């Protein structure tokens, strides 16, 4: 059989199986176990409703537990162990953490990560909000949106190629093939190896991620902006508010929850991103970040202990966001 047909069949089975689960599990719950009719109708409905959330969330909890929570627990345990030659491992307490904190590269990574965490989400969200607001007001807005969104469609590896070309430097005297140096030289500068100049090189790496993530922020925020009830905006116009006031006083507060979601999501991307750093500088010239440090330890040094400790550090950094989200979820439920 042609592979395309086989592929199609596997797709149908995979997706169909999934739909089937939700359909049948609900049917069985309602018809077989707790039919909402007969003498115990009321009790049955209550019981069915107590079980149903878990039915709805079952596959998600299973997948999250197996594919994410389990590795996290395993990593947590690994971070207190070290490999012994000949297989197996032994408990070493906090040795891995002590070793990690003692490394200059780790401290550099923490510092850089802080910069990334502040600059990238802020810039991406700001540009995304700007793009969303501006493009919503013009006729060719959706076309413009597509173009700004396009970097999202490019893999991190592809993006690194694109920006390497921009930051490229040729010796003085020959034609520059990197845009940045071409402009720099046109204004009378000497060609610079941008990626080696700290701290600007970190910023130049951030630009790549901002370039990619702005599209994400824009799409989500644009949906939120369209969801704002017309009446509130119209009321403000009648009151004589300027466009700036409408935007900052009326619109932004109303989409604040969405802005927070976007900010959170990009923050999490930042914590995980390492492809860009790996492909462009591999953390050299003082551009190391935590995720790349972890990758280095795991797959270059084969030091699972310290690699796991670095991973736990990344997860620790996310805890403020975690707490904040719990509080928020509680508030929504009242």
């Amino acid at each position: 059989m042609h592979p395309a047909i086989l592929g199609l069949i596997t797709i149908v089975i995979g997706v169909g199986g999934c739909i089937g689960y939700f359909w049948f599990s609900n049917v069985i719950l309602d018809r077989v176990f707790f039919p909402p009719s007969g003498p115990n109708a009321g009790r049955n409905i209550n019981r069915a409703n107590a079980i149903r959330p878990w039915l709805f969330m079952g596959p998600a909890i299973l997948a999250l537990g197996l594919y994410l929570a389990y590795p996290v627990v395993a990593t947590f345990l690994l971070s207190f162990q070290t490999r012994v030659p000949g297989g197996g491992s032994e408990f070493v307490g906090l040795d891995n953490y002590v070793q990690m904190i003692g490394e200059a590269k780790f401290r550099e990574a923490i510092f850089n990560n802080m910069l990334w965490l502040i600059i990238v989400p802020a810039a991406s969200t700001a540009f995304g909000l700007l793009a969303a607001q501006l493009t919503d007001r013009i006729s060719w807005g959706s076309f413009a949106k597509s173009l700004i969104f396009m970097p999202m469609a490019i893999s991190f590896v592809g993006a690194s190629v694109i920006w390497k070309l921009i930051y490229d430097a040729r010796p003085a005297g020959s034609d520059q093939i990197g845009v940045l140096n071409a402009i720099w030289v046109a204004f009378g500068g000497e060609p610079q190896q941008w990626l080696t100049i700290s701290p600007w090189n970190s910023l130049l790496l951030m630009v790549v991620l901002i370039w990619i993530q702005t599209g994400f922020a824009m799409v989500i925020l644009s949906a939120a902006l369209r969801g704002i009830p017309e009446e509130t905006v119209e009321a403000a116009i009648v009151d004589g508010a300027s466009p700036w006031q409408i935007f900052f006083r009326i619109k932004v507060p109303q989409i604040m929850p969405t802005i927070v979601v976007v900010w959170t999501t990009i923050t999490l991307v930042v914590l995980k991103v390492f492809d860009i750093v790996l492909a462009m500088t591999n953390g050299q010239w003082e551009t190391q970040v935590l995720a790349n440090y972890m990758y280095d330890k795991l797959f270059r040094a084969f030091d699972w202990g310290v690699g796991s400790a670095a991973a736990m550090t990344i997860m620790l950094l996310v805890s403020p966001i975690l707490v904040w989200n719990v509080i928020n979820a509680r508030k929504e439920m009242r």
Partner: protein
Amino acid sequence: MDNIAGKKSSLTWAVHISVVVLVALWLFPTVGLFVSSFRTGDQISSSGWWQSLSTQESQLSPIRIEGDETATGDAFVIEGTLISGDTTVSAWGTSSREPNAYEPGETVDLGDGQTLTVNDDSTYVLTGPETFEGTRLPRVFMTASSPPVWTVENYGTVLFTGTAAAGIGQAFLNTLTVSIPATIIPILIAAFAAYALAWMEFPGRALLVATVVGLLVVPLQLALIPLLQIHNTIGIGKGYLGVWLAHTGFGLPLAIYLLRNYMVGLPRDIIENAKVDGASDFQIFVKIILPLSFPALASFAIFQFLWTWNDLLVALVFLGADDDSLVLTGRLVNLLGSRGGDWEILATSAFVSIAVPLVVFFSMQRYLVRGLLAGSVK
């Protein structure tokens, strides 16, 4: 009144101009890559892509004379053209020390009775008293201006040559087989879970929401070995089922997080009215929530599709790296060879691989906008 109208139109102009600037900034890097994908490797590394549109005067790499000699009387002559195409030579030389020693048309004595003439159209005449056979012919250094040259050869290399030709179609199918279920399955699962987390009452709800957010940050690299171990133990091994499950697991937190956030914002009355009318949660979900959440579903679908399409790591680990199971990104990356790094191939590969996501995005966008409009009618 006029005043207000004038202000408004100048503001509209400002908006248009700002968007043009923003779009130009965002597009500029990609355009550079796109233009580069139509240039040869030597061109890319010798001049900026923005110069590829204009006629360039540049110092060319040396070209060695080659060709068959003809014997005329007591002399041997080799004639030919150094560069095909519309090139104008402004200076030339035969030594790396003085690459611009001579004018076009000048006849130069190379020693041993040999003479060389190079004309401005890069035709040359090399004469000598003895046969050139078995001797090394001279190199010619030229400063020449050449009009822009474009090539689709890179696309030919990426799509149709060598090992790529046999596998690119297969890789394309593999990628589709991976990414379509890996997009739909997590959305389905996440939509149900998001509804439960947004609108159903049960103990431990806030904790679950927090867990989902916490899991968003788990670095993928950590999960690879334990998960492949599980797959090998329970007998899934390497295959499509494994990749789908992996992508589902890794994509779920973001899906649940985004969808739940959207669903919480849906108007409470609609759902409560439906409940009063006796609709079950399943009916409410299918008939009300799903249609209303269409924009959010569509935007997440796009993200998840892009992510699975561009993914290399998960596919390599859970599907395998042999010829029959390679995905498109894997195939393109392999083209770069063991030591990699040819810009023209990189640029072309990048465009081949983003073609499908772009088509998907542009076609989905119509639905996205329609969905957004439907969603805003409350």
